[in-house]
C-alpha cells in the first residue's frame, strides 16, 4: 500500500499535481510498518521529519486526506497549507511532518516529556535520518531525554545518504547507534528491511521503554530506493546504478512476498489479488484527492493564530 501510494505520488509530481519538495519512503517501508506494529494505536506518539507519507497511512489516517494534502488541496489534513513535508494527524497521535533536518528531535523528546509529566505510559517514537544524527539539537535532546528519563525511542533511519552526501562523507563515526552511548542511553543497530524482524525488535524495545521509562536509541539500516526528493534527478552523482541494483535485492516487500510463498502462508493468486486491490484503492484515493478543490484565497489567513486573524492585505 505504501509502495503503491508513493509510486502514485511520484506520478502526481511528474504530472505537476504536486509542487515543492516531496520525499517518498520507497524501499524503507519495513521500518515504519514494523515499528508501528509495536505501538498502541491512538495512544503512543510518532513524529518524523519530511519523509512523512508512510507513518500516517499506517497509523490509521485517511489516505485521501494525506494525498490531498500532498497535492495542496483543501481536502488535506492541513487544508493544503502543509504539503508533502508537513502531514499531521494529531488525533491519531501522528505529530508530523517537519522540514528542518534535526529540528524536530527535541519536539519528539517534548512529546515524551509531556507523557512523563502527566504520568501516562505513552511511548514516543521519533524518527530521524542519518543526516539529522549530526545535528547539535539532536545531541541536546539525547542529553535531556537521558537526564529526565523520557520514554522516547529515537530511530535513526540510516538509509546511507544525507540528501546527496554519503554517510562516510558526513559522519565522523558511521556507527550512528553510538550516538546514544555517551548519554548512557541503551543503543542498538538493527535491520530495517525485514519487516518481521523489525516488528520483533520493535516490540521488545517498545515494551522495555514503556516498562522502564527511559529513552532508547536505534540505528535502523535501510535504503532509500528513490532519490532524496522528487526533485533529485541526479542520483548517479552520489551512487552507482550497480549499487542501486544490488540494494534493490534487499527490497522489503519482495522479501516478505518470498517469505510468504516459501512458507506456504499465501498463494500467488491471493498475493496477486491483494496487489490488484491495493492498486485499485490507490487509484480511488488519487481520484478523490485530485478532485478535492484548491483552497479559496481567503483561507490564507486561517490558522495563523488560534484566536485571531493576522493583519490582512499586502
Amino acid at each position, binding site marked *: 500500500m505504501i509502495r503503491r501510494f508513493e509510486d502514485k505520488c511520484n506520478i502526481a509530481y511528474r504530472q505537476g499535481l504536486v509542487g515543492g519538495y516531496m520525499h517518498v519512503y520507497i524501499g524503507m517501508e519495513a521500518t515504519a510498518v514494523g515499528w508501528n506494529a509495536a505501538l498502541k494505536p491512538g495512544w503512543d*506518539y510518532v*513524529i518524523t521529519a519530511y519523509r512523512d507519507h508512510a507513518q500516517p497511512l499506517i497509523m490509521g489516517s485517511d489516505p485521501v486526506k494525506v494525498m490531498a494534502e500532498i497535492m495542496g488541496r483543501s481536502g*488535506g*489534513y*492541513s*487544508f493544503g*497549507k*502543509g504539503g508533502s513535508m*508537513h502531514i*499531521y*494527524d*494529531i*488525533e491519531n497521535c501522528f*505529530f*508530523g*511532518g*517537519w*522540514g*528542518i533536518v534535526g*529540528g*524536530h*528531535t*527535541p*519536539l*519528539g*523528546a*517534548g*512529546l*515524551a*516529556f*509531556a*507523557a512523563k*509529566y*502527566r504520568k501516562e505510559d505513552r511511548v514516543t517514537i521519533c524518527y530521524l535520518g542519518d543526516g539529522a544524527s549530526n545535528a*547539535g*539539537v539532536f545531541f*541536546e*535532546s539525547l*542529553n*535531556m531525554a537521558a*537526564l529526565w528519563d523520557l520514554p522516547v525511542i529515537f530511530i535513526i533511519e540510516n538509509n546511507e545518504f544525507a540528501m546527496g552526501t554519503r554517510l562516510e562523507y558526513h559522519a565522523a563515526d558511521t556507527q550512528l547507534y553510538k550516538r546514544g552511548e555517551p548519554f548512557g542511553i541503551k543503543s542498538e543497530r538493527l535491520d530495517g528491511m525485514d519487516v518481521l524482524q523489525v516488528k520483533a525488535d520493535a516490540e521488545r524495545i517498545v515494551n522495555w521503554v514503556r516498562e522502564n521509562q527511559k529513552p532508547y536509541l536505534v540505528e535502523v539500516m535501510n535504503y532509500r530506493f528513490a532519490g532524496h526528493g522528487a526533485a533529485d534527478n541526479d542520483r548517479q552523482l552520489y551512487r552507482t546504478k550497480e549499487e542501486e541494483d544490488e540494494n534493490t535485492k534487499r527490497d522489503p516487500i519482495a522479501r516478505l512476498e518470498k517469505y510468504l510463498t516459501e512458507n506456504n502462508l499465501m498463494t500467488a493468486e491471493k498475493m496477486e489479488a491483494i496487489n490488484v486491490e491495493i492498486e485499485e484503492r490507490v487509484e480511488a484515493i488519487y481520484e478523490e484527492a485530485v478532485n478535492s478543490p484548491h483552497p479559496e484565497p481567503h483561507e490564507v489567513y*486561517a*490558522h*495563523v*493564530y*488560534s*484566536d*485571531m486573524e*493576522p*493583519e490582512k492585505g499586502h
Partner: protein
Amino acid sequence: MPTQELSYRDALRMALVEEIDRDQNVFVMGEDIGRYQGTFRVTEGLFQKYNVEQNDWRIIDTPIVEPGFTGIAIGAAMTGLRPVVEMMTMSFSILALDQIINHAAKIHYMTGGQSTVPMVIRGPGGAAKQLSAQHSHSLEGWYAHCPGLKVVAPATPQDAYSMFKQAVRDDNPVIFTENPGLYTIKGEVTTGPDVLQPFGKAQVLREGKDLSLVAYSRMVHVCLEVADRLAEVGISAEVVDVRSLLPLDTETIYQSVRKTNRAIVVYEDWKSGGFGAEIASRISEDCFDDLDAPVGRVGGLNVPMPYSRVLELECIPNADDVMAAVRKLG
C-alpha cells in the same frame, strides 16, 4: 479587587505562581531557574515551594541548551501542556530561533489548526548594565516580524502581572520581553485570579495635546520623563504605551496622532529596521494628512553594545535624545 505596591519583578513572580497554582499544565523551564532561583530572581523560591515542598515537578532546571529545551517545550505544548520558558536573557533566544520561528510559530498553520502551541517565552530583553555585546539585544522587533507569534513588552508592574497571566492562558506562542531595567520599578498593582490584560491594546499613560510620544517597555518611562520636562516649557506631550507589538493596536496610536498632529517613536532596539521603524512607517502611511511634521524616531545606536558604561549609555536612548528629537520637529 486587592491592590498593592509591587516591583515589576514581584508582580511577574506573583502572576507566575498564581498561574502555576491555577493550572496543572503550567510548568516553568530554563537555565538556573530552580535551585539557583533565576539569574534575575523572577523564579525566586519556586523550586522550594513546588519541587521540594509539594514534590511536584513544576520548576525544571535545564542544561544550557536553548534550542533543545525550547524544542522540548514546544513538543510538550503540542500535547496541551503550557510551558513557560525562561531565557536567561533574550539574547540567548537567538540560539533557539529555529525552534521559535521554524517550529513554534508555524505549527498551528502547518497543522491546519489541529495543534496549538500554548507556550510563553519570557526573559530580560535589552541592555542591563555593562553586559556588553552578546547579552544586551532587543529582539522584540525580530519576533514581531514573524506571523504566528504574539509579542508583548509591558512597561509597568500592573502590565507585567496582568499581561503575563494573559500570556500563560493564550493558546499561541507568546514572546514576553522584560527590559532588565524594569525589574526594580514599583507601582500599584491590582491583583486577582482573572485580572488579565488582553493583547493588542495600547494605553495612553499621559494625556497631552501637542505631541505624541510612542514607546514600549522601558522607553515608556523615558518618554514620561520627557513629558515632564516638556510640561515645564509649556509643551503638552501625550505618552502612548504600545505594550503589545503583535498584535499591534494602531488605532490608539493613530487617535493620539490625530489629536496632537506630531509623533516621535522611541525604542531601545537598533534604530535601523527596529520595530519603532514599523510604527513610524504606519503613522506616516495612515495619518499623513494629520501630521504637521514628519514622524520622528529615536532608537538605539546602530552598533554592537559596548562594555564601557560611558559608551553603553551613549547607545541607549535617553530623555536628552528624545528632547533633541522634539526640537527637531520644530
